């Protein structure tokens, strides 16, 4: 049976190193299969997160040969016999092996004001496809946090206190563009959200397993929205008087 060598990061918050494992290959195998093989046959203490193994839950994020990927979607045959290195996401602190502490994302999530429809509009609602279609893309997000991992504001500059990262720009975009939402989150975007820190390198789009156009469809329109609210004189007056959302022809 053909085999491949996997170099897997082993370690914890105090440090670690790559350990090599030889794993038999089967047709159509993905990197997560190899990790499972190692757990079952070579070392039961190798830690990784995973749930669905079908690219739907976003748990098994890691860096395969330096690229942020879902391990369940990374086909081994794609690497043609080259050695495969698997490391944890770099932007987040390591807990153990391939498991990182992503709790920062859950704390940030709570800072985004929730969906807020008009209280006197209980539904059932009439919303047309053309009104909701563009937010479907944002709602496809499986919270794998690969975009957060690759975002240089977070990854290289550690800007966790300045920028919420692409994932939450996507979440805010979904809320802001929901036809029934009444809240404006432009203050948040400008301040804690830190949207100004994104300089549109589009790295996040490249790693998104759901192919969400994070910068083009979420971040850029949000930047425009924020600029409108802050720098358009009429809108900035409305903002001061607490007028929430201006219907806009987008």
């Amino acid at each position, binding site marked *: 049976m053909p085999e491949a060598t996997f170099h897997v990061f082993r370690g*914890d918050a105090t440090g670690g190193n790559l350990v090599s494992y030889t794993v038999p290959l*089967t*047709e*159509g*195998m*993905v990197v997560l*299969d190899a990790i499972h093989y190692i*757990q*079952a*046959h070579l070392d*039961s*203490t*190798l*830690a*990784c*997160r*995973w*749930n*669905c*193994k*079908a*690219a*739907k*839950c*976003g*748990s098994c994020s890691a860096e395969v040969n330096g690229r942020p990927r879902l391990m369940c*979607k990374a*086909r081994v045959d794609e690497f043609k016999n080259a050695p495969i290195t698997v490391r944890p996401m770099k932007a987040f602190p390591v*807990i*153990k*092996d391939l*498991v990182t502490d*992503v*709790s920062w994302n*859950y704390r940030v*999530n*709570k800072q985004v004001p*929730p*969906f807020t*429809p008009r209280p006197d509009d*209980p*539904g*059932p*609602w*009439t*919303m*047309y*496809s053309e*009104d*909701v279609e563009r*937010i*479907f893309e944002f*709602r*496809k*997000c*499986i*919270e794998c946090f690969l975009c957060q991992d690759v975002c240089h504001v977070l990854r290289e500059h550690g800007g966790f206190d300045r920028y919420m990262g692409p994932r939450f720009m996507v979440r805010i975009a979904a*809320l802001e563009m*929901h036809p029934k*939402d009444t809240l404006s989150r432009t203050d948040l975007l400008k301040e804690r959200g830190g949207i100004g820190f994104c300089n549109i390198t589009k790295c996040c789009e490249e790693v998104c397993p759901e192919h969400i156009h994070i910068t083009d469809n979420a971040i850029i329109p949000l930047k425009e929205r924020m600029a409108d609210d802050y720098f358009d004189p009429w809108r900035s007056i409305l903002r001061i008087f607490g007028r929430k959302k201006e219907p806009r022809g987008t």
Partner: protein
Amino acid sequence: MAEWYEAHQHDVLVIGAGGAGLRAAIAAAAAGVSVALVCKSLLGKAHTVMAEGGIAAALGNVDPRDSWEVHFADTMRGGQRLSDYRMVEIFAREAPARVYELERWGAVFDRTEGGKILQRPFGAHTHPRLCHVGDRTGLELIRTLQDKAVYSGIEVFMEITLTRLLKDEERIAGAFGYRREDGRFVVFRAKAVILATGGWGKVYKVTSNSWECTGDGCAMAYEAGAELMDMEMVQFHPTGMVWPPGVRGILVTEAVRGEGGILRNALGERFMERYDPKKMELSSRDVVARSIYKEVQAGRGTPHGGVFLDITHWGPEYIKKKIPSMYEQYLTLANIDITKSPMEVAPTVHYVMGGVRVEPGTGATTVPGLFAAGEVAAGLHGANRLGGNSLADLLVFGKRAGEHAAAQVRTLAAAPRVDERHVGEERALIQHLFDGGGHENPFAIHEELQEVMGTYAGIARTGAGLTEGLERVRALQERARGLRAVGSMLFNPGWHACHDVRFMLTLCEAIFRSGSERQESRGAHWRLDFPDQTPRWGAMNVVVYRDNGEMKVTSRPVPQMSPELARLVQ
């Protein structure tokens, strides 16, 4: 207080953060009690995210003839007499309100031309009924509930494994477990506990279920004295992926058939004509799964042991819009472009209809203070679940369990007391895995168990096979006494797997014992030695419970409908 564990005190403890757990936690918090929500993974990763097809609710948006009565009748017929009609009635009546509520909380569904929630046809539903968004409805549901929950004052505890429910004499008093991250022990003290821990499809090798589906909640409930019902009823979804081997079992949504996908055997025959000429591909899941099994057994299967599911006639644009994740799944994992070639599919274990026996309206189990909702609870789906009824189940009964648990804790004069001896015993038991001198690998036992289940408790069963399977499970249980974990308590998958295996073995014993007891074929339970339904077994639910450490089997009469409701089902 003892120093060696972390302790938390809440009114209601919800175990599991899939759809049912989240909905229950939201309902309990809304009722003004303090709520802890504990999950085994990160929040939002639960198996609910994998639901694809939709939420069944009789909104009548696509066909105005739909009504709760028709949904009731479809569900009762699907359950083949074993469903608790009281649950089904509540379910069919309340599902529409739960869907609209979800929309008010921010869920966005596909729309009709008139701007209403779009509904798609699904197996054995008379009218188009499944509210959906593409083929990622479960994600939409869980994300919406997650976002709602985090603003509801619920305290969320992620990545915690619970291994035992704690009791104060008869009443539930909390749960014991540990943090996966570092192995710290945790005791949750609560006046009521809601189990929303899902199913146990991971006892099979070929399954659509995710890692978490090991049945911890059901097994803990059994150990705490709860009755389990209909455990023989395991649903095989007709269409799972077949090839390559690593993806075998991954779900191919029923929406493919709902929207016109055609099943063909290797000879190109549309074989459902032989088995259900009226409903064809949209027959109920038990029928379609058996039909595929029979085709393959008769030598008319594909080279990899499945059949073909063809949707190429839709055209690429429609396919990518309506089932985008199926398109992506086949392209990435199997190198197949489903807009051009048919999919190869075969049955895969998908759902358990059985579980903890509950009171129909409240979710109360037979243990005081313990509630259950969602897949872990039995009674709604009987012998076969209809597609789309699971997501509606989570919402309807999650909410009810949350409300009733909250109401019940308000009536308690004093908080139940956790027995410290039990906490100490359980700690000793799970630490024993490191230093007890055992040598059994939990992954190896799990794999052997999966073989046993596939061989003796698969789609087609026999009395002799069920007996043999039980013997083998007993032997594995014996070996599991010698399970061994190595390394530290820091995020240790081998150690976690030891608990999973212990729970799964208990549930598999229940599947074999219940399956042997039911000497007939009904719904998902197909006995080659008893190929027909019998009126006697149609009036009984098989129940197992623990007595002096031994599993006992008995039966309970299925509640009988009033003549008015019975007329709806005719």
